[in-house]
């Protein structure tokens, strides 16, 4: 199993953080362009899923899978969006993202008095984030 990359967006679609581990194929466009495309697609999927759903769903869009990878989406009530690409065999990624949110994001970004809502520059956060991902069972 493996983790490919991770995007964190705020509620306005700004890319706050990007992390990459095992990504073999690059998109060939800049990170900024790629983030915009990614956010746009997620925005569309979310509204599509909500419109087309036969019943009122609580969670909305959770993930999609191709035969090569799976994209998992987790959105907090405050609108921070976590997007992680893994291989198709990974399980309970949602729980993992929730843990990541409370143990890494809240601790080292939200509680950092110098963070003002802009893309994260803290080295401590980047280090803790990398450690957390690498320690997960999915990463191995």
């Amino acid at each position: 199993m493996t983790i490919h990359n991770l995007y964190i967006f705020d509620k306005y679609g700004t890319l706050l953080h990007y992390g990459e581990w095992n990504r073999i194929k690059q998109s060939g466009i800049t990170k900024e362009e790629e983030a915009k495309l990614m956010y746009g697609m997620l925005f569309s999927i979310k509204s599509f899923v909500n419109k087309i759903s036969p019943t009122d769903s609580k969670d909305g869009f959770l993930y999609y899978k191709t035969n090569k990878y799976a994209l998992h989406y987790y959105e907090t009530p405050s609108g921070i969006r976590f997007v992680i690409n893994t291989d198709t065999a990974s399980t309970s990624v949602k729980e993992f993202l929730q843990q990541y949110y409370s143990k890494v994001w809240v601790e080292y970004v939200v509680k950092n008095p110098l963070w003002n809502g802009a893309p994260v520059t803290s080295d401590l956060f980047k280090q803790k984030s990398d450690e957390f991902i690498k320690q997960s069972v999915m990463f191995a």
Partner: protein
Amino acid sequence: MLVETVFELLHSELVAYTTENKENDLSTLEYLGYSTGYRLIERLTREYPRFKDELDTMKFICTDFWTSIYKKQIDNLRTNHQGIYVLQDNSFRFLNNLSNGSQYLEYAPKFVAFTCGLVRGSLANLGINSTVTAEVHSMPTCKFHIQVNRT
């Protein structure tokens, strides 16, 4: 857990507010710490016998006082027995979420000024007139220098 978070967030707002227009002036923040410490000590020491001497008072600051505010003890206390004390905290609460190296080091003084005042105020109410300064080389380690003023 939540209570501690409230304290941390309130402290960072305090730092931002008091240093908003005067970047290098930490005296307001230090004074807020002083009056907090001065009052706090009344509450904290109500079940204590009187302290034997200065060192005994410092030990109280390092253990019970620090634990009640920062949920940990001071890691190292050193003194020259001539009125200078150095209190070292290896993972100081207000720096823990900031950095673990030299990034943001220029902002460190803002986050230790309140605590300097807190210690000075507490000691003042315990009858020790002092000057408290802090020193940060690599976060989240912080050293507080206490110099007792003898008159």
